[in-house]
């Protein structure tokens, strides 16, 4: 198993996602306080917290993955799907083709 990124970078990633969700006032949202709180609490280095710390590390990475993937998925969804049927020009453009704009294209001569 590859090592997870450091807790600091995960924390930063989560905050970045929260900022994308809430905008500039993201520090006032519920999740911000909770996430910061958890990262501070689990900083303890005593052996007693070892398991809980690994747990929290893995869970926070999963949460980061959830936030990132949901955002990316939604971006792709709004870009390519969920807009109903495309017009012929768009469909052709999707695979790198263009429709003939003027009569005189292929098959017109007949």
């Amino acid at each position, binding site marked *: *198993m*590859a090592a997870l990124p450091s807790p600091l970078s995960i924390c930063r990633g989560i905050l970045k996602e929260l900022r994308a*969700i809430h905008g500039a006032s993201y520090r006032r949202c*519920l999740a911000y306080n909770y996430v910061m709180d958890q990262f501070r609490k689990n900083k303890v280095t005593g052996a007693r917290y070892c398991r809980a710390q690994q747990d929290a590390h893995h869970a926070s990475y*999963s949460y980061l993955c959830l936030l990132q993937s949901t955002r990316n*998925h939604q971006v792709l969804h709004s*870009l390519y799907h969920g807009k109903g049927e495309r017009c012929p020009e768009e469909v052709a453009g999707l695979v790198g083709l263009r429709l003939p704009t003027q009569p005189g294209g292929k098959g017109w001569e007949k």
Partner: protein
Amino acid sequence: MFRTLAKLHSHFGNAFYLRKVCPIYRRCRFASKYSTTTTERKRFYQDVSISQGEGGMFEVNLDQRKLKTPGGKLFTVPNEAMAIAVATEWDAQRDTLKFYTMHLTTLCNTALDNPTQRNKDQMINAALKFLETDTVCYRVEEPLALVELQKNEWDPVLHWIENRYDVTIGSSYNILGPEIPDATKDTFRQHLNSYNFWSLTGLEYVITQLKSIVLSLGVIDRHLSVQEAVLLSRLEEEYQIRRWGSVEWAHDYDMYELRARTAAGALFVHLSSESSTVKRKLLQD
């Protein structure tokens, strides 16, 4: 004469029709509440907050209204972390509610309403079915590069789970798959039985997403990260992408959706089974 007969017939016919259809009709109405993925509602609230209700359960409030499940129950979750994660999902909606992006909410709704009315045994059986057709057990014989890739990537996970649970699973080049011994199934049945209903809902969700018990337990037991498990689950697709190129609106779209769903399921299992640890930590502070 004929017209009146036809009228009469249509009248009674309708009555019969309605009565006969009624139970289905009711079920459809219930189902229509669940089919919210296709319709998008406007965002009808400003603030999202959480509160602790009776029995220490947490609730989510949209403005002054309490969130309810599609089945009409009060939406309650066992701990603060889950409530905050769900509240964040509701807060992330912009103009319209996109239910297909709210995976944790969906999972909570499923656990609360239990729309298919299943008990734990049925869920465990459904999950164990995936062991017989586990993704990592099916190997190809050609092309050679893919054979190598599957061997290098899947074998370590398979060895890990065989050591971790002391079972034999094995892999197969045959279309019938490997012969899974009964002892292995019993071990996993016992293990799955140790999860509570909520965790099991999440775990089954992860298993159905990754199409693999081995990879799902790898994620839940923190041996694999979500990204790694999704990569291993889509190994053949990744191989084809490397060879033929990636198509953003199909490959990336699928990958992100699978990652989001798997992460939501894994987090759901974590949050609904580890609540005792969280409590202990709060006390010691």
